Every structure is written in C-alpha cells, then in structure tokens.
C-alpha cells in the first residue's frame, strides 16, 4: 500500500469522484477486463477461461479478507469446497436448477464462515491463521467420511442444467457467459463493499485496530461481517466451479487449495482490486499449459513464486500500480 502522501490532493479527489468509486486508472483497467471477458472466449478455450474465472472469484473473495481487513485466513478451501459439494449435491440429487444450487453453495459457505469466523476472529495473526486452518482440516475430514460427498471419488456427473429454465448450459459458450456474469457481479460487489463506509471501517481496522475501537466501532462485528461475506463469495466460486466441471472432489477442500489461493493473491497483489484476477490467471495458466511438461510444473511454479516474492513484493498488479503511480 502506497502511503497517502504519495498521491497529490487532486489525485485523491479524482479517486473519490471518477466513476462508481473507481479511480481513472481503475476504470481503464476495468474496461480492459470487460474487453477481455467479451473477446477471450472466441480465442481461448472456454472451459479453461471458466476455470480461471472461478478461481479469480475465489481469490477476490479471499483478498477481501486479507487485503482489506488484514486477516490472513488459511482455511478458505473449506468454504470453497463445501460450496462446491453442496451445489453439486443440490443440482444432482435434489435436482435444483443451477442458479439456485450456486446460491445454496454461497449460503453454505457463508454459514460455515459465520461459525468458524465467530471463533477465529477472537485471535490475531498466526493464531487466527492456525484456527482457520484447523477448522478447514475438520471440514476436510468430514468430507472424507460423509456419505454424500462420495469420499475420494467425489460427486461426479453433476448436471449443468438450464439457467432460469431456458438457457442450455451444456453448451460451453452459454456456461461461459453465466460464469463471466457471476464473476463480474462478485467482483463489483467486492469493489462496492470495499468503497462503502463499511469498507472504510474495515480498512481502518487493518491499519490500526485499537484506534478503530477507540473511535467507537465494534471491530469484532465488522471483522465477522467481512469474514462471512468472504466465505460466502468463496462458496459461490466453489459452486460455480462444480457446475462448470460437473465434479466436486476432495482437492477443493484440501489445505493445498487454501495455500493456492494465498499464492494467487500474493502473485497478483494483496489489497489491489485487480490483483487476485491477475494472480489467478497466472497460476491457472501455469497449471493448464504446463501440464504437458510433466514433473516440471511444480518446479516452474515454485520458481515463479520465489521470483514474485523476491522481485515483486507488492505482487504483479501492485508493482505495475506503483510504477505508474496509480492505485489499481
């Protein structure tokens, strides 16, 4: 985060007033993002793009918590994975339409976030991270044992169904537009949250919690609220992913998934609104397009991570923003 002194007064006014809370640079980046979403399915493989968008939404949700409230959760796989399982179960066994199933996934993520968050926010720093990790592992063990998750085979052949009863999602392009729509809605919601008075309080908690308390804010309530929102959006992302792929498996609840979303946010840039998208794009592209290099995938991933941590401490988007002296 650049110090406020780094911006001139006019810059700051521009930032507040430009468009829907976006700064000028953010509007430009947003236009590029929209253009990418509109054009890319005609050039790149839609299923790959859908996967990217699901993880981008997941990373954005995670970033809401770590980037704007300063709470490093190490258990976000629990909300992502449970959202995925519930959506899959609802669509396959209960026969609910996809939009309701995904919504249900989000609700389950939020409910789980409410319980885990209520306990976890009582501690800070490493203890907070460990508590969230411990709960996420409990959720993982639950998923290994519970009959409805199908153990290590997972829930398979989840139907994509028809969106609102008429749009056939089994066509990849239709599914892509729904995914892009959900991603954009989530992205804008997070942007709105961050720029609301509520979001200002969150950022003040990140900067100095005792001071926020002394100003009369019940910081625990704010933190819990942010936690639940983040978990809910992670659940939506997980649900969306299980509809896209037709599967919900243990990989999504395993702790490595929690690690991966931290990696995405770090590579993209913590506390930047576009960072998680870029980070997710980098990581997912590597996973996908390096698949043919076999064992080298993990080596290359590790090298890029080391490079990012050493050379781009603010993450890719953070560094670009710093270089152009704008907030992205």
């Amino acid at each position, binding site marked *: 985060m650049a110090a406020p002194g780094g911006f001139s007064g006019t810059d700051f006014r521009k930032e507040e007033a430009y468009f829907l809370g976006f700064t000028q640079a953010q509007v430009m980046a947003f236009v590029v993002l929209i253009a990418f979403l509109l054009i890319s399915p005609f050039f790149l493989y839609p299923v*790959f793009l859908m996967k990217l968008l699901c993880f981008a939404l997941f990373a954005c949700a995670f970033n809401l918590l770590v980037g704007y409230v300063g709470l490093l959760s190490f258990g976000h796989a629990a909300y992502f994975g449970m959202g995925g399982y519930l959506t899959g179960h609802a669509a396959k066994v209960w026969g609910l339409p996809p939009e309701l199933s995904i919504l249900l996934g989000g609700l389950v993520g939020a409910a789980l976030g409410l319980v885990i968050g209520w306990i976890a926010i009582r501690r800070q720093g490493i203890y907070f991270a460990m508590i969230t990790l411990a709960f996420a592992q409990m959720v993982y063990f639950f998923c290994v044992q519970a009959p409805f998750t199908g153990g290590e*085979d997972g829930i398979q052949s989840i139907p994509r169904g028809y969106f609102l009863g008429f749009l056939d999602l089994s066509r990849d392009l239709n599914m892509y537009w729904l995914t892009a729509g959900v991603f954009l809605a989530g992205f804008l919601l997070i942007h709105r949250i961050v720029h609301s008075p509520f979001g200002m309080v969150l950022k003040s908690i990140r900067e100095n919690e005792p001071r926020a308390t002394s100003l009369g804010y019940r910081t625990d309530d704010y933190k819990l609220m942010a936690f639940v929102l983040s978990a809910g959006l992670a659940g939506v992302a997980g649900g969306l992913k299980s509809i896209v*792929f037709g599967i919900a498996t243990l990989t999504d609840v395993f702790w490595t998934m929690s690690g991966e979303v931290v990696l995405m946010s770090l590579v993209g840039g913590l506390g930047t609104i576009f960072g998680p998208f870029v980070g997710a794009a980098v990581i997912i592209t590597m996973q*996908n397009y390096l*698949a*043919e290099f076999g*064992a080298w*995938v993990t080596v290359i991933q590790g090298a890029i991570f080391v490079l990012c941590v050493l050379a781009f401490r603010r993450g890719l988007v953070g560094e670009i923003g710093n270089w152009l002296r704008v907030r992205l």
Partner: protein
Amino acid sequence: MSIQRRTLLSAAAAAPLAGGMARRARAQANTIKIGVLTDMSALYRDLAGPGSLRAVQMAVQESGITQRGINVEVVSADHQNRPDVGSTVARQWIDRDGVDVIIDVPTSSVALAVNNITREKNKVMLNSGAASSDLTGSACTPNTIHWTYDTWMLSNSTGGAMVRAGGQSWFFITADYAFGHALERDASEFVRGAGGRVLGSVRTPFPGTTDFSSFLLQAQASRAQVVGLANAGGDTINTIKQAAEFGLTRGGRTKLAGLLVFITDVHSLGLQTAQGLVLTETFYWDLNDKTRGFSTRLALPGGAKPSMVQAGCYSSVLHYLKAVGEMGVAAAKASGADAVAKMKAMPTEDDAFGAGSIRADGRKIHPSYLFEVKQPSESRGAWDYYKLLGTTPADQAFRPVAQGGCALVR
C-alpha cells in the same frame, strides 16, 4: 499505456489462435491422436507416468499401423491427480486438439471425471491406471474400457486365492474411509466364500495416520495367519515397514497381504522390508518369455521393469490400433462408441497379457496372479521380486457382469 496494453492483449490473443490453426491444419483426417493423461509428478509417477507414455509409443511402433499409411500422434499431460486439471485437459484435447482416445488416467476421481467427458463427446477412454470397479459397474459407458485391474479383482484374488493357498484366518487393518471399507468388505466376502475365517479388523484414521504400531499389535494378538491391508499408497508402505520392524512376519507364521500394492511399491520398500508380502497383479515382467521380451523392448530408464499399469497402456493401445486398422480411420474418429464396440468384438492378443477379451460392460479380462515377495536370498538380481502362488483364470478373475449393475448389459 493503454495502447501498449491493447497491443499486448491482441498479440496475446493472436498467438494461441495462430497456433490453433496450424494444429488444425496438421491434424488431417488420416491421423489418430492419442492422449496419455497420467501422473507425471506425484505418487503414481513410477507406477504410470513417463513409463506409460513410453509404453504407448512402443505400442504405436509395434502396431505397424504407420506402414499402412495411417498417422498416429501421441501427446501427454500431467493431471497432477486433480480432477479439475484432468477434466480441463481432457476437454481441451477433445474440443481443440482433436484427440481421439485418452489412455491411462490413474486416480479414480480423475478417471470418473474423464469417463463422463469421453461419453459426452463420444471419444474413447482406455483406462489402465485407476482402481475403481465402478468404471465397469454403475459408471460404465459405451466409450470406456477398463483394462488392467480393479478393486474387485484384487480383493477376489488376494482374499480367495490366498485362502486356497493356506491362509485360513484373517485380520484386517483398514483405512477408515469409503475406499478402505469397500476393500475390507469385498475381501472378507471372498475369504469366507473360500472357507476361511475373518477374526476381526481395526480401522485406522484416514488420512494422516503414520504410526500403525497399536494396530499391528492388535493384529498380532488376534493370532490370524494373514493380516490384510485394506489401504493404499503411503498407508500401505508405512504399515509394511512397521510390520517388518515389529517382526510381525518373522518365522513365517503370519503373512501380510496387501490389497493394493504394486511392483513399484515393492521396489521402493526393498526386499528386506517387503519379503513375504502377498499381493495380486495381472502382469509381472518375469512371467514368461513374452513378458520378458516385452519388458526388454520397452527398456525403461535405469533398468526398471514395467508395472502392470504400464503394460496395460501398451496392450490397450495395441488393440485399439488393431481395431482402427480394421474399421478405418474415418469411422474410428467419427464415433468412439463404434471403435470400442469393434474392440469388444475382437479377441485381444499381446505379449504382456497373452490372449484375452473385452466384455460388454467394458471390462478387459485376463488371468490374475497371486504373488509372494521373495526373500533377499532367493532373488537373483534387480527386479526379481515375485514368486507365483496361484493363478485365477480369466473368466473367474473379474466381477461377473450381472453383479456390476452396468446399464449396458441390463
């Protein structure tokens, strides 16, 4: 800046497009494209991985199909044991790259995901690496052949044949999740069916158990002749190692029976630790002259011998290309289900598994072998690990068609 960004963007967008067009131009109607989807970087790497790819390439060479003017292209990818990565790669291969047949696919969750994709897109999956017998049961499709082994066959051979070989009383150490329970349940049935007794079982927390000592002591106290390991991977390795440290099998009164152990596991454990272990495989490199010839030709790096999964990749591709040769490339590419139907109609014959056939439910059948791991003094050299205890003939080795619940044969 935005102009620069836009240039970059269009360049980035154009690159894959150009690549895609070049690929499509190359993929003529006369080319069969084989995708080997396997684990190149994690726990199934030795068992499948690069060895599977090599086996597929050798099958293409030996099929002699290129001499008949048919091109075959082989691509491979690492699914990292993640169903989402596996299914993205599989979809992309089929939709964009024109892959006709997907080979190997270890890890049941990935295999089941790819199983649905090949059915949806009417392509072919020849699965060698996955264990789940659901692939020819509740999840069977007209586009899938399950080639090498499955959990039912392993339990049947290790449970039933072991009793016939003298292991009358059993105790199970079971990993406490659905897969472990299923293995224990199946194996217990076969033990009882063959006239043996199950004295008890103990469930170990899964995942994350590293200390099996208390479970091994319970097994020892039961005085069972055979301790069945209804677990997999690292759990099995750890149990075998700790059983050796406890001297559980010393004196030869008690035997360990692994329900899901491969020759690569025995190789990494070493004969000193693994000696006396009983297990089932459908292929062993030293079975006869043909299997020895196959293993020598395959020439895996470091003098390694092929696993049954790798042998299955060879055998399945060889048979697929035979079917393609008979029905023609155009027909094989047009419908995966037709290609599979053709494969089912032809008897199989290759050096790795000998003569065999494919059932209507997609199950490739061949004999299964019950092996015991040799003592270090009995072994004549590297990879000389097994002695044969018993053979289950092909028609009894696998689950009867009627019991699987496959919709294709109802």
